């Protein structure tokens, strides 16, 4: 059973990790603990709680920058930004319901997992908004990278390396992120009754339009029926959605244009701000896949135009799924009793796109997450390079060992 360590500041994090590195003790890093079920199962000598690294240290709205302790609650940051009509543009999702936890997300956790919501399509992922960091490597040495400015080519961009590294390289202690104005107005145009392939084409058209769409998703009929938004729930058929955001007159103009464009393909409807927000939160937070509590949940990042084909292949043994990111992100729920319990559908899902993409097992029982590759396996040369990078930060393999792959 891992013993808990509770450092009170970044200096103590350094002390503890230096000691752990020197004594070859393994350490699990814990921010808010909301994403403990994401990734492979980690068993360590110690659990290092970063919760004391809390609080916003700098927020300058007109400079579009915010710096905070890595364990600052995401909710606190979002509330602070909302007061200035700003936001984290990458739209971090909330997987609380997916994992059945009420634990709060931290900004460091969101960055370490590189999570992003529907606006990923236009605004980029968490990594694109991650400007600077202070952290402690698995060597037990404090280091920093980046800064507080958006344009920066001063040494290697280690922020990118930390984003999505799930605490396997370093403990983040302080992070600096770019923030952006919240849109003045939000509208969503809905297109009804398209099959998956037709929806992908419609989304590709919208994404290739000059209308700066900020999100594009497609919900097959069974998924749409689970929405809390009446226009979507009551459609009785598949619903394809596009979101437009910005200054009032511009949003009106672009909404009209998209209604015309999609109106040529089928029946269309329009959601205003409130309903738009509900719908896109559902899509971001995987709400439509939640009713089956035991389902194995996969997330696939693929070439958008291949989305429908991949979905068909991945669901060959049953299950349900929907599309975000104009068809480039697939969320799947595979019923536990209909798929191979040994691999949780990994073979089927990964076979469906043949290596040109990335599939992550987002939810599954512990024994499954211990036995299959949760993250996409990589070719040997890339795997070896990634292992050397792990070694460059954490030569004794003490940080979150096995969280991403068997070796690191």
């Amino acid at each position, binding site marked *: 059973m891992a013993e808990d*360590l*509770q450092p*009170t500041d970044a200096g*103590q994090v*350094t002390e*503890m990790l*230096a000691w752990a590195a*020197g004594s070859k003790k393994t350490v699990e890093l814990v921010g808010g603990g909301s994403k403990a079920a994401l990734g492979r199962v980690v068993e360590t000598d110690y659990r290092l709680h970063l919760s004391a690294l809390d609080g916003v240290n700098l927020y300058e709205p*007109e*400079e579009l920058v915010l710096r905070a302790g890595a364990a600052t609650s995401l909710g606190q940051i979002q509330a602070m930004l909302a007061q200035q*009509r700003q936001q984290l543009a990458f739209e971090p999702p909330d997987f609380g319901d997916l994992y059945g936890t009420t634990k709060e997300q931290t900004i460091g956790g969101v960055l370490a997992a*590189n999570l992003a919501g529907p606006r990923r*399509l236009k605004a980029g992922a968490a*990594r*694109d908004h991650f400007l600077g960091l202070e952290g402690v*490597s698995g*060597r037990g040495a404090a*280091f*920093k*990278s980046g*800064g507080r*400015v*958006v*344009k*920066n*080519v*001063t*040494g*290697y*961009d*280690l922020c*990118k*390396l930390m*984003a*999505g*590294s799930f605490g396997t*390289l370093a403990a983040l202690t302080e992070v600096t992120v770019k923030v*952006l104005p*919240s849109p*003045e107005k939000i509208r969503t145009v809905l297109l009804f009754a398209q099959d998956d392939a037709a929806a992908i084409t419609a989304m590709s058209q919208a994404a*290739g339009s000059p209308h*700066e769409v900020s999100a594009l998703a497609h919900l097959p009929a069974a998924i749409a029926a689970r929405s809390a938004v009446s226009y979507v729930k009551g459609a009785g058929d598949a619903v394809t959605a596009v979101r437009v955001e910005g*200054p009032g*007159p511009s949003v*009106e*103009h672009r909404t009209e*244009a998209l209604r015309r464009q999609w109106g040529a393909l089928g029946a269309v409807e329009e959601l205003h701000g409130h309903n738009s927000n509900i719908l896109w939160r559902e899509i971001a937070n995987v709400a439509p896949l939640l009713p089956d509590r035991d389902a194995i949940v996969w997330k696939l*990042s*693929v*070439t*958008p135009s291949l989305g429908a084909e991949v979905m068909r292949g991945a669901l060959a043994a049953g299950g349900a799924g929907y599309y975000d990111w104009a068809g480039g992100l697939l969320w799947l729920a595979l019923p536990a009793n209909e798929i191979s319990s040994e691999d949780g559908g990994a073979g089927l899902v990964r076979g469906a796109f043949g290596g040109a993409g990335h599939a992550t097992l987002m939810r599954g029982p512990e024994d499954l997450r211990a036995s299959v590759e949760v*993250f*996409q396996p990589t070719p040997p*040369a*890339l795997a070896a*390079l*990634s292992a*050397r*990078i792990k070694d460059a*930060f954490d030569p004794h393999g003490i940080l979150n060992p096995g969280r991403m792959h068997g070796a690191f």
Partner: protein
Amino acid sequence: MLMPKPEGAILAQRQGLLTDLREIVPGEGVIADNVALRAYESDGLSAYRSVPLAVVLPETVPQVAAIMQLCERRGIKVVPRGAGTSLSGGALPLEDGIILGLGKFNRILEIDYENRAVRVQPGVTNLGISLAVDDNGFYYAPDPSSQIACSIGGNVAENAGGVHCLKYGVTTNNLLGLEMVLLSGEVIRLGGKHLDSGGYDLMGLLTGSEGLLGVVTEITVRILKKPETARAVLIGFPSSEQAGDCVSRVIGAGIIPGGMEMMDRAAIHASEEFCHAGYPLEAEALLIVELDGPGREVDHLIDRVGEIATQCGSTSLRISQNEEERAAFWAGRKAAFPAIGRISPDYMCMDGTIPRNRLAEVLKRMAELSEHHGLRVANVFHAGDGNLHPLILFDANAGELETAEKFGADILRLCVEVGGVLSGEHGIGIEKRDLMAEVFTEEDLAQQQRVKCAFDPNGRLNPGKVFPVLHRCAELGKMVVHQGKIPFPDIPRF
């Protein structure tokens, strides 16, 4: 600028190396003639020159892999080079190294409108990508001023920006996939046409790594549909404080313009004499604000920006009435460097980034430094994102180079002091290498070099750039960290 001492053991192998290289790249792909090598002796930072052992111009990925393997085996240093437009000396040759030129990798491999992606070889110019998709109304967003000449491979190496990156991001935000060759000869593909790849973000790490980690042989970029309309506004101010205030207030009002550039009096005058764009000569500071999107949005936002400018005390405001005029407004800005070149025998372009709200203070102190060093300075500024390009005017023939370098270093120290960084988009290269300790601790730099060791354990790829002190990888691995306190008696546990 002190470069690593050429290694005698490498120089002695030159003949054998040339024979081996010619076996890999037959014909004219290996340049060893002393006159021909001169063409490669510097990059865009032309104050520094050095003749390489040889230049090799491969045409295929297997050739690149074989060259890398050969150099790793023989212990030869390799300096990758795209179009050679680097302003920080990233492609400066080493006397005991070869130049691996990617100029023949100049093909656009695939245009995929359905997935809004273009797959190209690294020697394609930045503008070449936009031109290739122009007929269908698409473009590639990052637009460094040198876009007509600079290669996309070089853009990846330096994480190039441009005047539109406030809204559309820099190179790293616009890449989907990369293929790179390591010194071991291994070919590694990252990303693709999908958005997130998971695993360690090596594509993000490679971008801006200045040719120290691997040689990029293929790039997939994201393309965007051109906005329906774009209009530029020229706004004159009686002081740079007021112009800077206007920039902050525009962003504070929730407006993110496509581009927002500032020029000071010296830059305005030099550009106007060169380009006749109609810049207001009485102004102390000029803002060029570009708004793009649907016509109604652009009109709406131009009104709001105009109101804010008036509140900030602007003295003139001109809105572009057509595409020609918009292009002319930008032509003056994009030609600011050559315009300065006309009025001074030499100039040096700096590239610090600062928090925007420190601009007025930085400009004032820069004027003091200008007086102290006895050299003039003109400023162009990516105002939206705080990226400053002071142009130091000097005459190398009058022995002013060293003073200019000192002045430049003082400016960059000032940028760091106010919370900024040494480089926004040109890279560290050799130019700012020795200032890295102003920003980073020894451990920060050691950690970065350990990352390099994961790619290049023998330090053969572009050594002498970026890092002021080169450590052997074995030495970096052994560096002992302070052992930490053992059982933490005073630390709360639960």
